[in-house]
């Protein structure tokens, strides 16, 4: 590890990476425009575009830990599932008995009035966000003594265990899952309603992280990535920073989980709530594809990945998984710094990184890939 961290140490010396603010706002405006016009221009793809925003959110939240802090988690999907279940339990539990509801799979005399539905969603999403963050704080005590591969394996185990345990927990429906309360209104109305929520969640995540990375906290977690022991020696309370960073990503992932559960209308532990080998690995792949440790990388990676995924689903049906696995391998082997990382290396000026032409070109040598 030492050689790698040294690279990062020199890189951190060149100052914080930033897209030039004008470029920034142009791209951002373009994205927002696409977000608003997307469902109007392509009404048939509203659900797909909503999932795209969730993917952006996934990649961004993974990057807090993996890119900015150097803790590569394979189990962040845990908070997605936790949020989904918390939201569902709150939505149902506010107005009726959860055990009775799940024992008959929502069949029978369970009606939610529109008011009850909207209140349920609102309270459920807040509870999902806060509940996931609290879980992150609690689990932080367990996993943050692990480094490198052990952290990755430990978090992976956590997500797998959660799926199995929820599957055996009868009160929340066990392996047969929970059917979500039905949206009071038309199908189109439902997809627009959740589209807006997903869009707002993704944009809010982006804005919040952009602000977060510009604060002292952002510098501190970068210091942890570059050399945790030195950061500690400099007086950074590393455990506290790591826990907060994880809680932030859990907060947004919890919201994403609550939204996705309501969008699909039916939640189940292994495939929907804790899909470790699909969404769980996608979020890593997306952040790496775009370039981890940058703010735009995960966004770009998520958008590209989602399009590639949808294309392979359409044109290579049956082979889609093999194709995706191959993409992950190729990305890791040949293109580890990701798209934005590569651009940063090639055109550091665009990112506000100054390279002294007289000095041997060395400073941002490796990009954020570590």
């Amino acid at each position, binding site marked *: 590890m030492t050689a790698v961290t040294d690279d990062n140490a020199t890189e951190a010396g060149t100052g914080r990476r930033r897209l030039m603010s004008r470029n920034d706002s142009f791209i951002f405006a373009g994205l927002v425009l696409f977000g608003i016009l997307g469902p109007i221009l392509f009404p048939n793809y509203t659900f797909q575009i909503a999932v795209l925003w969730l993917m952006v959110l996934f990649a961004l939240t993974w990057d807090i830990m993996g890119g900015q802090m150097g803790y590569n988690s394979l189990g962040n999907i845990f908070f997605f599932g936790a949020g989904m279940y918390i939201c569902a339990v709150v939505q149902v539990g506010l107005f009726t008995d959860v055990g009775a509801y799940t024992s008959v799979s929502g069949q029978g005399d369970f009606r939610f009035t529109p008011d009850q539905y909207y209140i349920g969603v609102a309270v459920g999403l807040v509870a999902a966000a806060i509940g996931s963050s609290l879980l992150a704080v609690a689990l932080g005590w367990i996993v943050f003594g692990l480094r490198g591969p052990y952290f990755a394996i430990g978090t992976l185990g956590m997500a797998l*265990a959660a799926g199995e345990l929820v599957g055996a927990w009868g009160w929340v429906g066990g392996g047969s899952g929970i059917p979500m309360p039905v949206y009071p209104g038309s199908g189109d109305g439902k997809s627009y309603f959740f589209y807006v929520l997903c869009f707002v969640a993704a944009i809010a995540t982006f804005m919040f992280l952009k602000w977060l990375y510009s604060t002292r906290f952002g510098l501190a977690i970068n210091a942890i990535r570059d050399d945790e022991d030195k950061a500690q020696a400099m007086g950074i309370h590393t455990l506290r920073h790591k826990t907060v960073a994880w809680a932030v990503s859990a907060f947004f992932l919890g919201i994403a989980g609550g939204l996705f559960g309501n969008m699909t209308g039916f939640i189940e532990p292994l495939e929907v709530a804790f899909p470790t080998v699909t969404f769980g690995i996608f979020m890593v792949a997306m952040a790496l594809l775009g370039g981890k440790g940058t703010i735009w990388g995960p966004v770009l990676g998520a958008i590209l990945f989602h399009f590639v995924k949808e294309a392979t689903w359409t044109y290579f049906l049956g*082979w889609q998984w093999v194709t*995706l*696995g191959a993409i992950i391998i190729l990305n890791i082997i040949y293109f580890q710094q990701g798209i934005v990382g590569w651009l940063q290396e090639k055109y550091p000026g665009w990112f506000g990184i100054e390279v002294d032409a007289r000095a041997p070109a060395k400073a941002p040598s490796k990009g954020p890939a570590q």
Partner: protein
Amino acid sequence: MLDNLNLLVIAPYLGVQLLLDGIFIGAIFALAAYGLALVWGVMNVKNLSQGEFVIMGGYFAWYMSTYGIHPMYALPVAVIGMFGFGWVVYKTIISRVVEKDMFTSLLATFGLAIVIQQGLNLAFGPEVQVAESGFPTHTIPIWGGEITVAAIRFYSFLICCVLAGGVVAFMKKSRMGQAIRATSQDVRAAKVMGIDTEKVFAFTYALNAAICGAAGVLISMIWVIQPFYGITHSIRSFVIVTAAGFGNLAGVLMASLGLGVVEQYGGFILGAELQQATVVGMLLLVLIWRQVQMNRVRQAVQ
């Protein structure tokens, strides 16, 4: 759950049955875990496709048994086939990530695992398969009950012992084994001494795949295989290696037998649907235990 515990107390012979099953299964876990420890120790690659190699080996046996060939004959075929496969994987993928940091190898092998899973799924379908060995099952009366021991379990245990002994002898005596051990101690020094470390790496990885292939053949005969069961095997290997450390064959062996037994008991007491959760739970427990251990000397587990 309490009922099952009670059952164990009333009928102690069930406990003996579980213990025996655990040991027979655990011996096979030891093979895959030793392979992982080898690759981890020599080239610092965390191979997350370990379980998929095992399952691939199993499909050799199952595929041959569908043609009426006894799955036992698949053992040499799987060993040779997987050795070749491992070599190809090394040359195409692993050789490019050896020099990089650990997460790279972890993720690259995870991608490989997905490709293998889905490839097997496309080729053979998602059904759970067993390679029937056709050996008899014996019942042994004990403590007012009787336990059943399938002859194939006993044979597979013997084969495990022979294979493990063979690998150890190979590592100790042969020229290549010496080179592997030298490389695991210090790659640069080994290079200076004229060892072709690239070749050693390739051989180690291929050997690992071959060992996993052999383990898979045995698993397919005494247990079940399915394209997506690989990840549990990978996690088992990680549990064992994390608990035992690498370069410590006795530790790997004890941890494997222990895990096999714990898994059998866990599956029995908590119910079969929680058997997988037991394995993953063991992983978390081992990691926590290692942290507590390292905390005493103010170190992180890395």
